[in-house]
Protein backbone atom coordinates (compact mmCIF):
# COMPACT_ATOMS: atom_id res chain seq x y z
CA UNK A 1 0.00 0.00 0.00
CA UNK A 2 1.45 3.34 -1.08
CA UNK A 3 0.50 5.26 2.06
CA UNK A 4 -3.20 5.83 1.43
CA UNK A 5 -4.81 8.56 3.50
CA UNK A 6 -6.72 7.73 6.64
CA UNK A 7 -9.91 8.88 4.92
CA UNK A 8 -9.34 6.46 2.08
CA UNK A 9 -8.54 3.54 4.38
CA UNK A 10 -11.57 4.21 6.54
CA UNK A 11 -13.89 4.65 3.57
CA UNK A 12 -12.61 1.38 2.11
CA UNK A 13 -13.23 -0.49 5.33
CA UNK A 14 -16.70 1.01 5.57
CA UNK A 15 -17.56 -0.16 2.06
CA UNK A 16 -16.40 -3.68 2.89
CA UNK A 17 -18.56 -3.66 6.01
CA UNK A 18 -15.51 -4.52 8.07
CA UNK A 19 -15.48 -5.40 11.76
CA UNK A 20 -12.14 -4.82 13.45
CA UNK A 21 -9.74 -2.23 14.77
CA UNK A 22 -7.72 0.31 12.82
CA UNK A 23 -4.60 1.57 14.54
CA UNK A 24 -3.69 5.10 13.40
CA UNK A 25 0.02 5.69 13.88
CA UNK A 26 0.80 6.09 17.57
CA UNK A 27 -2.17 8.40 18.06
CA UNK A 28 -5.07 6.06 18.51
CA UNK A 29 -7.41 3.33 17.36
CA UNK A 30 -10.74 3.33 15.55
CA UNK A 31 -13.06 0.35 16.03
CA UNK A 32 -15.44 -0.63 13.29
CA UNK A 33 -18.52 -2.81 13.55
CA UNK A 34 -19.97 -3.96 10.21
CA UNK A 35 -18.49 -0.97 8.42
CA UNK A 36 -19.52 1.64 10.94
CA UNK A 37 -17.34 3.31 13.56
CA UNK A 38 -18.42 2.09 16.98
CA UNK A 39 -15.58 3.39 19.13
CA UNK A 40 -12.43 5.48 18.88
CA UNK A 41 -9.52 6.15 21.18
CA UNK A 42 -6.97 8.91 20.89
CA UNK A 43 -3.86 9.56 22.96
CA UNK A 44 -4.91 13.21 23.38
CA UNK A 45 -8.50 12.69 24.49
CA UNK A 46 -9.97 11.03 27.58
CA UNK A 47 -11.59 7.68 26.83
CA UNK A 48 -14.65 6.18 28.47
CA UNK A 49 -12.41 4.67 31.18
CA UNK A 50 -11.03 8.12 32.06
CA UNK A 51 -14.46 9.73 31.97
CA UNK A 52 -15.89 7.04 34.21
CA UNK A 53 -13.07 7.47 36.69
CA UNK A 54 -13.33 11.28 36.57
CA UNK A 55 -17.07 11.11 37.24
CA UNK A 56 -16.32 9.51 40.60
CA UNK A 57 -18.86 6.75 39.97
CA UNK A 58 -16.26 4.03 39.76
CA UNK A 59 -12.62 3.75 40.76
CA UNK A 60 -9.92 3.19 38.13
CA UNK A 61 -9.22 -0.18 39.72
CA UNK A 62 -12.80 -1.31 39.27
CA UNK A 63 -12.72 -0.19 35.65
CA UNK A 64 -9.61 -2.35 35.15
CA UNK A 65 -11.32 -5.31 36.82
CA UNK A 66 -14.37 -4.90 34.61
CA UNK A 67 -12.11 -4.77 31.61
CA UNK A 68 -10.35 -7.97 32.60
CA UNK A 69 -13.52 -9.88 33.35
CA UNK A 70 -15.07 -8.69 30.11
CA UNK A 71 -12.18 -10.29 28.24
CA UNK A 72 -12.43 -10.46 24.49
CA UNK A 73 -16.18 -10.97 24.34
CA UNK A 74 -16.84 -7.23 24.23
CA UNK A 75 -19.45 -7.35 27.00
CA UNK A 76 -17.76 -4.86 29.31
CA UNK A 77 -20.34 -2.14 28.81
CA UNK A 78 -23.23 -4.45 29.64
CA UNK A 79 -21.38 -5.58 32.73
CA UNK A 80 -21.04 -1.98 33.96
CA UNK A 81 -24.73 -1.32 33.30
CA UNK A 82 -25.75 -4.50 35.14
CA UNK A 83 -23.59 -3.49 38.07
CA UNK A 84 -25.42 -0.17 38.17
CA UNK A 85 -22.35 1.99 37.52
CA UNK A 86 -24.25 3.88 34.84
CA UNK A 87 -27.47 3.61 32.86
CA UNK A 88 -27.69 2.35 29.29
CA UNK A 89 -28.44 5.86 28.07
CA UNK A 90 -25.42 7.24 29.88
CA UNK A 91 -23.20 4.51 28.47
CA UNK A 92 -24.39 5.26 24.95
CA UNK A 93 -23.84 8.97 25.42
CA UNK A 94 -20.44 8.35 26.97
CA UNK A 95 -19.36 6.10 24.09
CA UNK A 96 -20.64 8.43 21.42
CA UNK A 97 -19.05 11.43 23.10
CA UNK A 98 -15.67 9.76 23.55
CA UNK A 99 -15.76 8.39 20.00
CA UNK A 100 -16.46 11.79 18.47
CA UNK A 101 -13.86 13.45 20.64
CA UNK A 102 -11.17 10.96 19.65
CA UNK A 103 -12.20 10.95 15.98
CA UNK A 104 -11.99 14.73 15.84
CA UNK A 105 -8.33 14.66 16.83
CA UNK A 106 -7.42 11.50 14.90
CA UNK A 107 -8.96 12.66 11.63
CA UNK A 108 -7.75 16.20 12.22
CA UNK A 109 -4.16 15.09 12.74
CA UNK A 110 -4.41 13.11 9.52
CA UNK A 111 -5.67 16.07 7.52
CA UNK A 112 -2.96 18.74 7.31
CA UNK A 113 -0.09 16.51 6.25
CA UNK A 114 -1.77 14.04 4.00
CA UNK A 115 1.54 13.23 2.33
CA UNK A 116 2.93 11.87 5.55
CA UNK A 117 -0.29 10.09 6.45
CA UNK A 118 -0.01 8.15 9.70
CA UNK A 119 0.66 4.46 9.25
CA UNK A 120 -2.51 2.48 9.69
CA UNK A 121 -2.80 -1.16 10.70
CA UNK A 122 -6.05 -3.04 10.52
CA UNK A 123 -6.83 -6.05 12.70
CA UNK A 124 -9.85 -7.92 11.53
CA UNK A 125 -12.35 -9.09 14.12
CA UNK A 126 -10.89 -7.00 16.94
CA UNK A 127 -13.51 -5.46 19.24
CA UNK A 128 -13.37 -2.99 22.10
CA UNK A 129 -13.90 -4.39 25.58
CA UNK A 130 -16.93 -2.16 26.17
CA UNK A 131 -18.73 -3.71 23.22
CA UNK A 132 -20.81 -1.88 20.68
CA UNK A 133 -23.17 0.77 22.00
CA UNK A 134 -23.36 3.42 19.31
CA UNK A 135 -22.57 3.70 15.60
CA UNK A 136 -21.38 6.40 13.27
CA UNK A 137 -21.38 5.82 9.55
CA UNK A 138 -18.05 6.94 8.13
CA UNK A 139 -19.25 9.84 5.93
CA UNK A 140 -21.37 11.08 8.82
CA UNK A 141 -18.35 10.99 11.11
CA UNK A 142 -16.30 13.06 8.66
CA UNK A 143 -19.18 15.51 8.35
CA UNK A 144 -19.52 15.88 12.10
CA UNK A 145 -15.77 16.45 12.51
CA UNK A 146 -15.91 19.15 9.85
CA UNK A 147 -18.90 20.75 11.55
CA UNK A 148 -17.05 20.77 14.87
CA UNK A 149 -14.03 22.34 13.24
CA UNK A 150 -16.09 25.18 11.77
CA UNK A 151 -17.90 25.67 15.07
CA UNK A 152 -14.53 26.19 16.74
CA UNK A 153 -13.47 28.64 14.06
CA UNK A 154 -16.78 30.46 14.33
CA UNK A 155 -16.15 31.13 18.02
CA UNK A 156 -12.56 32.28 17.61
CA UNK A 157 -10.96 32.03 14.21
CA UNK A 158 -7.40 31.22 15.24
CA UNK A 159 -6.00 27.81 16.14
CA UNK A 160 -2.98 29.20 17.96
CA UNK A 161 -4.58 28.93 21.40
CA UNK A 162 -5.29 25.23 20.90
CA UNK A 163 -1.73 24.22 21.61
CA UNK A 164 -0.55 27.04 23.89
CA UNK A 165 -0.81 27.13 27.69
CA UNK A 166 -4.07 28.73 28.79
CA UNK A 167 -3.39 32.05 30.54
CA UNK A 168 -6.42 33.85 32.01
CA UNK A 169 -6.15 37.64 32.31
CA UNK A 170 -5.62 38.83 35.89
CA UNK A 171 -8.11 41.63 35.28
CA UNK A 172 -10.99 41.46 32.88
CA UNK A 173 -11.90 44.29 30.53
CA UNK A 174 -15.53 44.53 31.72
CA UNK A 175 -17.35 44.47 35.03
CA UNK A 176 -19.62 41.50 34.57
CA UNK A 177 -19.13 38.05 33.08
CA UNK A 178 -21.43 35.07 32.52
CA UNK A 179 -19.62 31.74 32.36
CA UNK A 180 -20.67 28.25 31.41
CA UNK A 181 -19.77 25.38 33.71
CA UNK A 182 -17.04 24.25 31.31
CA UNK A 183 -15.55 27.75 31.10
CA UNK A 184 -15.51 27.98 34.89
CA UNK A 185 -13.65 24.70 35.20
CA UNK A 186 -11.12 25.73 32.58
CA UNK A 187 -10.45 29.07 34.28
CA UNK A 188 -10.09 27.43 37.66
CA UNK A 189 -7.70 24.77 36.40
CA UNK A 190 -5.66 27.04 34.13
CA UNK A 191 -2.19 27.52 35.62
CA UNK A 192 -0.46 29.26 32.71
CA UNK A 193 1.42 26.05 31.88
CA UNK A 194 -1.26 23.54 30.88
CA UNK A 195 -2.51 23.46 27.29
CA UNK A 196 -6.22 22.88 26.57
CA UNK A 197 -5.66 19.18 25.92
CA UNK A 198 -3.79 18.80 29.21
CA UNK A 199 -6.57 20.67 31.02
CA UNK A 200 -9.14 18.35 29.48
CA UNK A 201 -7.28 15.34 30.86
CA UNK A 202 -7.03 16.95 34.27
CA UNK A 203 -10.73 17.85 34.33
CA UNK A 204 -11.96 14.58 32.88
CA UNK A 205 -13.78 16.49 30.16
CA UNK A 206 -13.73 15.85 26.43
CA UNK A 207 -10.83 17.61 24.73
CA UNK A 208 -13.12 19.19 22.15
CA UNK A 209 -15.38 20.81 24.77
CA UNK A 210 -12.31 22.14 26.53
CA UNK A 211 -10.95 23.55 23.29
CA UNK A 212 -14.33 25.15 22.64
CA UNK A 213 -14.44 26.64 26.14
CA UNK A 214 -10.92 28.06 25.70
CA UNK A 215 -11.83 29.69 22.41
CA UNK A 216 -15.05 31.07 23.91
CA UNK A 217 -13.04 32.56 26.76
CA UNK A 218 -10.63 34.08 24.26
CA UNK A 219 -13.52 35.50 22.28
CA UNK A 220 -14.94 37.03 25.47
CA UNK A 221 -11.56 38.69 26.06
CA UNK A 222 -10.76 36.76 29.24
CA UNK A 223 -7.54 35.09 28.11
CA UNK A 224 -4.11 36.38 27.25
CA UNK A 225 -4.06 36.05 23.50
CA UNK A 226 -0.86 38.04 23.16
CA UNK A 227 1.02 37.57 19.92
CA UNK A 228 4.16 36.00 21.34
CA UNK A 229 5.52 34.79 18.00
CA UNK A 230 5.34 38.23 16.40
CA UNK A 231 2.05 38.79 14.60
CA UNK A 232 0.40 42.01 15.84
CA UNK A 233 -3.26 40.96 15.35
CA UNK A 234 -4.56 38.15 17.56
CA UNK A 235 -6.19 36.07 14.84
CA UNK A 236 -3.78 35.07 12.12
CA UNK A 237 -6.52 35.30 9.50
CA UNK A 238 -6.63 37.45 6.37
CA UNK A 239 -7.15 41.22 6.56
CA UNK A 240 -10.93 40.77 6.75
CA UNK A 241 -10.60 39.44 10.28
CA UNK A 242 -9.60 42.81 11.64
CA UNK A 243 -13.04 43.01 13.21
CA UNK A 244 -13.30 41.16 16.51
CA UNK A 245 -14.65 37.63 16.19
CA UNK A 246 -18.39 37.36 16.67
CA UNK A 247 -19.19 36.79 20.34
CA UNK A 248 -21.86 34.25 19.51
CA UNK A 249 -22.40 32.09 16.53
CA UNK A 250 -24.92 33.22 14.01
CA UNK A 251 -27.18 30.47 12.70
CA UNK A 252 -25.27 30.45 9.45
CA UNK A 253 -21.88 29.91 10.99
CA UNK A 254 -22.32 26.18 11.13
CA UNK A 255 -21.27 26.04 7.52
CA UNK A 256 -17.62 27.01 7.53
CA UNK A 257 -15.11 29.29 9.11
CA UNK A 258 -14.31 31.35 6.04
CA UNK A 259 -18.03 32.01 5.64
CA UNK A 260 -18.20 33.36 9.17
CA UNK A 261 -15.21 35.53 8.53
CA UNK A 262 -16.34 36.89 5.20
CA UNK A 263 -19.67 37.58 6.82
CA UNK A 264 -17.88 39.85 9.26
CA UNK A 265 -15.96 41.52 6.46
CA UNK A 266 -19.01 42.10 4.31
CA UNK A 267 -20.85 43.72 7.20
CA UNK A 268 -19.03 46.98 6.62
CA UNK A 269 -19.76 47.54 2.93
CA UNK A 270 -23.34 46.47 3.59
CA UNK A 271 -23.74 49.05 6.29
CA UNK A 272 -22.24 51.72 4.04
CA UNK A 273 -24.64 50.94 1.22
CA UNK A 274 -27.57 50.94 3.62
CA UNK A 275 -26.57 54.40 4.71
CA UNK A 276 -27.23 55.90 1.30
CA UNK A 277 -30.98 55.20 1.11
CA UNK A 278 -31.30 56.36 4.68
CA UNK A 279 -30.06 59.82 3.66
CA UNK A 280 -32.81 59.99 1.06
CA UNK A 281 -35.46 58.90 3.55
CA UNK A 282 -34.33 61.53 5.99
CA UNK A 283 -34.47 64.22 3.38
CA UNK A 284 -38.04 65.49 3.87
CA UNK A 285 -37.29 66.13 7.54
CA UNK A 286 -34.08 67.87 6.61
CA UNK A 287 -36.08 70.07 4.30
CA UNK A 288 -38.43 71.02 7.10
CA UNK A 289 -35.77 71.87 9.59
CA UNK A 290 -33.16 73.46 7.39
CA UNK A 291 -35.59 75.60 5.47
CA UNK A 292 -37.42 74.57 2.35
CA UNK A 293 -35.27 76.42 -0.10
CA UNK A 294 -32.03 74.87 1.09
CA UNK A 295 -33.57 71.40 1.38
CA UNK A 296 -34.95 71.35 -2.10
CA UNK A 297 -31.79 72.74 -3.55
CA UNK A 298 -29.38 70.24 -2.01
CA UNK A 299 -31.51 67.11 -2.04
CA UNK A 300 -32.11 66.29 -5.71
CA UNK A 301 -28.55 67.02 -6.69
CA UNK A 302 -27.24 64.60 -4.10
CA UNK A 303 -29.67 61.77 -4.70
CA UNK A 304 -30.85 61.32 -8.24
CA UNK A 305 -29.86 62.74 -11.57
CA UNK A 306 -32.10 65.75 -12.08
CA UNK A 307 -35.46 64.12 -11.31
CA UNK A 308 -37.73 66.40 -9.32
CA UNK A 309 -38.30 65.57 -5.66
CA UNK A 310 -41.82 64.49 -4.85
CA UNK A 311 -43.57 64.99 -1.54
CA UNK A 312 -47.17 65.43 -0.39
CA UNK A 313 -47.33 69.17 -0.91
CA UNK A 314 -49.67 70.72 -3.49
CA UNK A 315 -46.89 71.99 -5.73
CA UNK A 316 -45.78 68.39 -6.29
CA UNK A 317 -49.33 67.26 -6.93
CA UNK A 318 -49.58 69.89 -9.61
CA UNK A 319 -46.32 68.69 -11.09
CA UNK A 320 -47.60 65.10 -11.18
CA UNK A 321 -50.83 66.13 -12.81
CA UNK A 322 -48.89 68.06 -15.45
CA UNK A 323 -46.66 65.04 -16.04
CA UNK A 324 -49.68 62.76 -16.42
CA UNK A 325 -51.32 65.15 -18.85
CA UNK A 326 -48.14 65.40 -20.88
CA UNK A 327 -47.83 61.59 -21.06
CA UNK A 328 -51.44 61.22 -22.11
CA UNK A 329 -50.93 63.85 -24.79
CA UNK A 330 -48.03 61.79 -26.17
CA UNK A 331 -50.17 58.73 -26.86
Amino acid at each position, binding site marked *: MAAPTLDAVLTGLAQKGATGSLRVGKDGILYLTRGRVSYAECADTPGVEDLLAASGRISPTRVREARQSAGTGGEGGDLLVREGVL*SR*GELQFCVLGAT*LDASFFLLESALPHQQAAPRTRYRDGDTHWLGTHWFFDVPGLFRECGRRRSRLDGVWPSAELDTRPVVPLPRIPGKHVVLTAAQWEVLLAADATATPVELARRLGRPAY*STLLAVRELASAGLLATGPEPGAPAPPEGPPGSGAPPPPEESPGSGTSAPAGRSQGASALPKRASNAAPRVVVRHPEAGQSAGQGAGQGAGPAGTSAGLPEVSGDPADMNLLIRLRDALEALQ
Partner: protein
Amino acid sequence: MIGIEDCLSEAMSIPGALDAILVDHTSGMAVAGEGVQDPARSALGLTEAFRATLDGIALSSADGTAARIEDVIITTDTSYHLIRPMEMMFDGPLLICLRLDLEHSNLALARRRLRTITHQLIAH
Protein backbone atom coordinates in the same frame (compact mmCIF):
# COMPACT_ATOMS: atom_id res chain seq x y z
CA MET B 1 -33.99 1.35 31.88
CA ILE B 2 -34.04 2.69 28.34
CA GLY B 3 -31.51 3.69 25.72
CA ILE B 4 -31.25 6.83 23.63
CA GLU B 5 -33.42 5.62 20.76
CA ASP B 6 -36.13 4.20 23.06
CA CYS B 7 -36.19 7.53 24.79
CA LEU B 8 -37.03 9.23 21.49
CA SER B 9 -39.79 6.82 20.56
CA GLU B 10 -41.24 7.17 24.08
CA ALA B 11 -41.26 10.93 23.61
CA MET B 12 -42.98 10.54 20.25
CA SER B 13 -45.74 8.50 21.88
CA ILE B 14 -46.78 11.52 23.96
CA PRO B 15 -50.17 12.74 22.66
CA GLY B 16 -49.76 15.55 20.14
CA ALA B 17 -46.04 14.94 19.53
CA LEU B 18 -44.91 16.21 16.12
CA ASP B 19 -41.17 15.57 16.24
CA ALA B 20 -38.41 14.95 18.74
CA ILE B 21 -34.67 15.38 18.69
CA LEU B 22 -31.77 14.79 21.06
CA VAL B 23 -29.06 17.42 20.94
CA ASP B 24 -25.62 17.53 22.53
CA HIS B 25 -25.62 21.07 23.85
CA THR B 26 -21.85 21.52 24.05
CA SER B 27 -21.11 20.65 20.46
CA GLY B 28 -24.52 21.48 19.02
CA MET B 29 -24.72 18.04 17.44
CA ALA B 30 -27.92 16.20 16.61
CA VAL B 31 -27.54 12.86 18.42
CA ALA B 32 -30.74 11.30 17.14
CA GLY B 33 -34.07 12.51 15.85
CA GLU B 34 -37.53 11.35 14.87
CA GLY B 35 -39.67 13.22 12.39
CA VAL B 36 -37.14 16.05 12.10
CA GLN B 37 -36.47 17.14 8.52
CA ASP B 38 -33.03 18.69 8.92
CA PRO B 39 -31.58 17.44 12.23
CA ALA B 40 -28.30 19.37 11.94
CA ARG B 41 -30.13 22.64 11.45
CA SER B 42 -32.65 21.99 14.20
CA ALA B 43 -29.85 21.00 16.56
CA LEU B 44 -28.03 24.26 15.92
CA GLY B 45 -31.14 26.35 16.42
CA LEU B 46 -32.23 24.57 19.58
CA THR B 47 -28.72 24.78 21.02
CA GLU B 48 -28.73 28.53 20.49
CA ALA B 49 -32.24 28.91 21.90
CA PHE B 50 -31.23 27.03 25.04
CA ARG B 51 -27.95 28.91 25.37
CA ALA B 52 -29.74 32.25 25.06
CA THR B 53 -32.20 31.15 27.73
CA LEU B 54 -29.40 30.07 30.06
CA ASP B 55 -27.51 33.34 29.58
CA GLY B 56 -30.60 35.48 29.97
CA ILE B 57 -31.81 33.71 33.07
CA ALA B 58 -28.33 33.78 34.61
CA LEU B 59 -28.16 37.53 34.10
CA SER B 60 -31.62 38.16 35.47
CA SER B 61 -31.45 35.94 38.53
CA ALA B 62 -31.57 38.21 41.55
CA ASP B 63 -28.99 36.48 43.72
CA GLY B 64 -26.54 36.00 40.89
CA THR B 65 -26.18 32.30 41.58
CA ALA B 66 -25.88 29.69 38.88
CA ALA B 67 -29.11 29.09 37.02
CA ARG B 68 -30.47 25.57 36.75
CA ILE B 69 -33.17 25.13 34.17
CA GLU B 70 -35.70 22.34 34.55
CA ASP B 71 -37.21 22.84 31.13
CA VAL B 72 -37.95 25.54 28.58
CA ILE B 73 -41.41 25.92 27.06
CA ILE B 74 -41.84 27.97 23.93
CA THR B 75 -45.31 28.52 22.50
CA THR B 76 -45.54 29.49 18.86
CA ASP B 77 -48.74 30.06 16.90
CA THR B 78 -48.87 26.41 15.89
CA SER B 79 -46.91 24.37 18.40
CA TYR B 80 -45.24 24.00 21.75
CA HIS B 81 -41.50 23.43 21.92
CA LEU B 82 -40.37 21.63 25.04
CA ILE B 83 -36.63 21.64 25.72
CA ARG B 84 -35.42 19.61 28.65
CA PRO B 85 -31.75 19.36 29.64
CA MET B 86 -30.37 16.13 31.05
CA GLU B 87 -27.15 16.30 33.02
CA MET B 88 -25.00 13.45 31.84
CA MET B 89 -22.09 11.87 33.66
CA PHE B 90 -19.64 14.00 31.80
CA ASP B 91 -20.07 16.98 29.54
CA GLY B 92 -23.53 17.68 28.30
CA PRO B 93 -26.20 18.55 29.00
CA LEU B 94 -28.03 16.41 26.52
CA LEU B 95 -31.17 18.24 25.41
CA ILE B 96 -34.34 16.41 24.60
CA CYS B 97 -36.49 18.66 22.45
CA LEU B 98 -40.08 17.80 21.69
CA ARG B 99 -42.45 19.70 19.44
CA LEU B 100 -46.15 19.33 20.17
CA ASP B 101 -49.27 20.26 18.27
CA LEU B 102 -50.87 23.28 19.94
CA GLU B 103 -54.42 22.01 19.49
CA HIS B 104 -53.98 18.32 20.15
CA SER B 105 -51.68 18.17 23.12
CA ASN B 106 -51.85 18.58 26.85
CA LEU B 107 -48.86 20.61 27.94
CA ALA B 108 -48.95 19.61 31.59
CA LEU B 109 -49.20 15.94 30.73
CA ALA B 110 -46.45 16.20 28.13
CA ARG B 111 -44.10 17.88 30.59
CA ARG B 112 -44.68 15.16 33.15
CA ARG B 113 -44.20 12.37 30.63
CA LEU B 114 -40.99 13.94 29.34
CA ARG B 115 -39.65 14.21 32.87
CA THR B 116 -40.36 10.53 33.48
CA ILE B 117 -38.67 9.57 30.22
CA THR B 118 -35.52 11.53 30.99
CA HIS B 119 -35.35 10.00 34.45
CA GLN B 120 -35.56 6.56 32.88
CA LEU B 121 -32.75 7.41 30.47
CA ILE B 122 -30.29 8.42 33.16
CA ALA B 123 -31.53 6.19 35.97
CA HIS B 124 -29.16 3.47 37.04
